[in-house]
Every structure is written in structure tokens, then in C-alpha cells.
């Protein structure tokens, strides 16, 4: 497995003239889970979407700065955004299953194009196992995923993102819309994946970051307030704003 880190250098993101992310520079280490936390509307998701070039798909959206993967700027005109998104995978906030495909088909849809049919079953099982969802769906592979609970569907989306074989996985509030039981299992899977991938988790829930993140960054009004190893961030924050946010004294 390749060890890929991701570096954001002075990234600013705009919608038209409205600036949402301001001059953010962060390094995401391989085999680490880096949480980006902050209140709603702090630019967390927008920043995350600049990392895999999803931001540019929104009408009127643009950015400045650089995002480096293996030292190469992902905004280099020679880079195919679709190929890039296979290396920098993403789990969206809503559990969106692909229509007309059963559970197996949904995972297989993310496998690399041209993979032998005989290997597809193995790869689907591997992705589901890595996402910690194999035991829940192994007898329901031919089921329409729309009939499954929302939380289970979101865990399938994690498996689907893993099936694409990314080096970096971006997670945009992945447990915000699911029940605590599935949310906890989702977190368990992420915790296990830390040893394999570079994970970037956006969450508004500081407790979630405290439970599973190696490093945590607080974003406030689009700018970085503090970045620190999680054990320090949550016990001895250096900034007064961080402390105020963690203790709920600042909305």
C-alpha cells in the first residue's frame, strides 16, 4: 500500500465574490485520521471539497492556493479530476445509493474499470469487510439498498468509497444523519482504517473527533484557529477560541 499524504497550501475557496475558506494550510499525514471541526458555516465541507476538486463542480465556485498529493498539485491542468477522485475518495453526508443496483452492484460500481469478473466478488467482500459491514449484509447482497436502514446504507457508502481503492479518504459529516448505533459502528470502521489510509474527517461533533482522530483542526469562519494532536487539542488547547468552542461557551 502506498503512503500518500495530502498538503493544502494557502487554500481559499469562494462562491462568486463570497469567501468561505481563507488561506488554509494543513498537512494530512498518511495512516492518520485528521479531524477538521468547527461550528456550522465555518467552511469545513467547502474546504474538504477543494481537496478532491468537488468544489469546482458548484456553479460560481472557485479557489486559490495549492493542494499537493505526492508532491503534485491536483489542480494541474494535466490531471484528470475523475482519476484524481479515485485516489482521493469521499463519503458524502447523505447515504446515497446508486439507483437500479443491489447491494453488491453498488459496491462493484466503484471497482476499477476492467477488473476481471471473477475478482469482483472477492473485492466486494473485501470492501464490505474493511467497512465493518460484511456481517450485516452478507445475506442481503441482492437486496435493493433503499430497503435498508439509513445508517446501514451510509456504512455501505463507506464500503463503496473503499472499493474504489483510494489512498486518501475524505469524510464529510458521515454520521450526522444516521442513528447512534450505526454511527458508532461507522466510527469503529474509521478507527481501524487509520492504519491503512490518510483519513480527513469533517465533523461538527468535537466528541467524535476526540474519540477517533489523531490530529484535530478547528476551523472558524473559514480560517484555521488551531491544529494540534487530538490529545492536546482536547485537553490543553492553546487558543481561547478553541477552549470556548470546546466548552460550549461560543456558538
Amino acid at each position, binding site marked *: 500500500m502506498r503512503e500518500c499524504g495530502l498538503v493544502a497550501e494557502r487554500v481559499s475557496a469562494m462562491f462568486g465574490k463570497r469567501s468561505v475558506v481563507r488561506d488554509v494550510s494543513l498537512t494530512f499525514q498518511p495512516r492518520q485520521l485528521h479531524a477538521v471541526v468547527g461550528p456550522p458555516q465555518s467552511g469545513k465541507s467547502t474546504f474538504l471539497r477543494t481537496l*478532491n476538486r*468537488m468544489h469546482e*463542480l458548484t*456553479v*460560481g465556485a472557485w479557489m486559490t492556493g495549492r493542494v499537493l498529493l505526492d508532491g503534485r498539485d491536483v489542480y494541474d491542468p494535466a490531471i484528470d479530476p*475523475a*482519476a*484524481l*477522485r*479515485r485516489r482521493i*475518495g*469521499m*463519503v*458524502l*453526508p*447523505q447515504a*446515497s*445509493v*446508486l*439507483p*437500479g443496483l443491489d447491494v453488491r452492484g453498488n459496491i462493484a*460500481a*466503484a471497482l476499477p474499470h476492467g477488473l476481471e469478473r471473477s475478482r469482483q466478488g472477492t473485492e466486494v467482500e473485501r470492501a464490505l469487510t474493511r467497512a465493518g459491514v460484511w456481517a450485516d449484509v452478507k445475506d442481503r447482497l441482492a437486496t*435493493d439498498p*433503499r430497503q435498508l436502514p439509513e445508517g446501514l446504507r451510509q456504512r455501505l*457508502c463507506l464500503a*463503496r*468509497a473503499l472499493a*474504489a481503492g483510494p489512498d486518501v479518504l475524505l469524510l464529510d459529516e458521515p454520521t450526522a444523519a444516521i442513528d447512534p448505533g450505526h454511527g458508532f459502528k461507522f466510527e469503529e470502521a474509521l478507527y481501524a482504517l487509520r492504519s491503512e489510509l490518510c483519513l480527513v474527517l469533517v465533523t461538527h461533533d468535537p466528541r467524535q473527533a476526540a474519540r477517533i482522530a489523531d490530529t484535530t483542526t478547528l476551523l472558524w469562519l473559514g480560517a484555521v484557529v488551531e491544529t494540534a494532536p487530538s490529545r492536546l487539542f482536547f485537553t490543553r488547547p492553546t487558543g481561547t477560541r478553541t477552549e470556548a468552542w470546546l466548552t460550549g461557551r461560543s456558538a
Partner: protein
Amino acid sequence: MSRPVDRFWQGALGLAFIVGLVPGLLALWGVVTHGVTAFGTVQWGALLPAILGTVLLTLGACLMAVPLGIGAGLYLAEYPHTRLARLSRFVGDVLGGTPSIVFGVFVWGWLVTATGRFSGWAGSVALALVMLPLVMRVTESGVLAVPASLREAPLVLGWPRWRATLSVTLRAGLPGLSIALLVAIARVAGQAAPLLFTALGNPYLSADLGQPMAALPLTVFADGSAPGTAAQDRAWAAALLLVLIAALLGIAARAVARREEARDA
């Protein structure tokens, strides 16, 4: 809102609905009663060319307008702020508000005079022009109704945009789109004006789209104003057939909608 005012508004809206519905129901009742009577007396051999013609002309129009309209609608939904999209939306609005007879005159001047003959193809092209803006706009609104998270789901897997649009966005919007398409087909199947200068009509049974072609709306127009009960019966029977086609397509549209509701429940 207080209860009496609420009741007043409910009553007023109900009354407006009934007043609006009555003329339509009376027209429908007239067509059904006259049409059922005419069904018993009409010579079906004389109506057969019009039935076949309507099917072929509508099919030809669908073959042209549906792929083009869906393609244009997808473009409008996926790239809404490009100059081409803004122009297409404007042209679509203008075409959508253009009287259908204008399309007939346009195709007559452009195709019929160029080829030197009235034909089923010319009729299909005229109907396709009527249908095109409808298909374009229902595709656009159908695709925009698909949740953004579902539209983005294949993109974050590294699918190219064209594949994501065709395999996921279009597929997710297909139930709504099918319903709208069935309604659009029913609407163009009943158009007489675009066919007057293009398909012209043909008393003989013909499946050759290169020749003038009969159609049910043309039969209603021509025989309805002709003297004699036989011609008038043909017109009433043709009118009832058009109503039945519209009803069948409407039932099909509702069946599609119910099936999707049951699947999502």
C-alpha cells in the same frame, strides 16, 4: 386563520375548481356520447389509415424529439449557467409558447417545398418541433429534482461526468421523466395544426412515411366540417379515439407514478 375564514377559502377554491372543471367535463361528455354512437355506425376501414398514421407520426416525432430533448434537458440541468444553456432555455421558452400551426408552416416552407411533396416525415418533424421544448423542460426539471447528494455520489467514486449523468442522474429521474413524456406524447398525438401543411392527410392505408399520411386529428378537422352523417360520424369516432389514447397514456403515467411510490415506501 380563523375557522370561518378557512372554510370560506376552502369553499371558494372548491367552487373555482368545479367551475373550471365543468366545461371540460361537458366537452368530454359530448365527445364520448357522440363518439360511442359513431363507433356503432362508422366504417372502420375508413378510419384505419388515420389510426395507423397517428401511431406512425407520433412514433416518428418521438424518435426525433425524445433523444434530442433529453440531451438538451440534461445539458441545461448539468451546465445551467453557460451561454449556450441560457440561449437554449430562451429558445425553448419561445418555442414552447409558439402556436403549433407555426411549426407546420415552418416545416412546409423548409421541408415540403424542398422535397416537393407532403409526407409523413414532414408531419413527424412538425410534431417533433412541438414536442421538443416540452421534453427539454421536463428533463431539466426532472434531473434537478434528483437530490444533489445522489448526483454527486458517482462523481466522488471517480466516474466521469457523462457516465454519472447518464447512469445515475437520468436513471434516478426516469420515473418522473416517463410520466412527463407520456403526457407530452398524448399532447402531440392530438395536434392537427402542424399536420395540415405537412402530412396533409391520405384516404388510403399507408405505412410509408415518405407519402402523405392520414392522422386522427386531421380526420376530426376535415370530416367534422364536411357535410353528411358518415363523415361526421368518422370525426366523432376519431375524436373519441384521441380521448381514449390520452386516457390510456394518462393511466400508464399514473401506473408508473404508483409503482415508484410503492418502491420508495
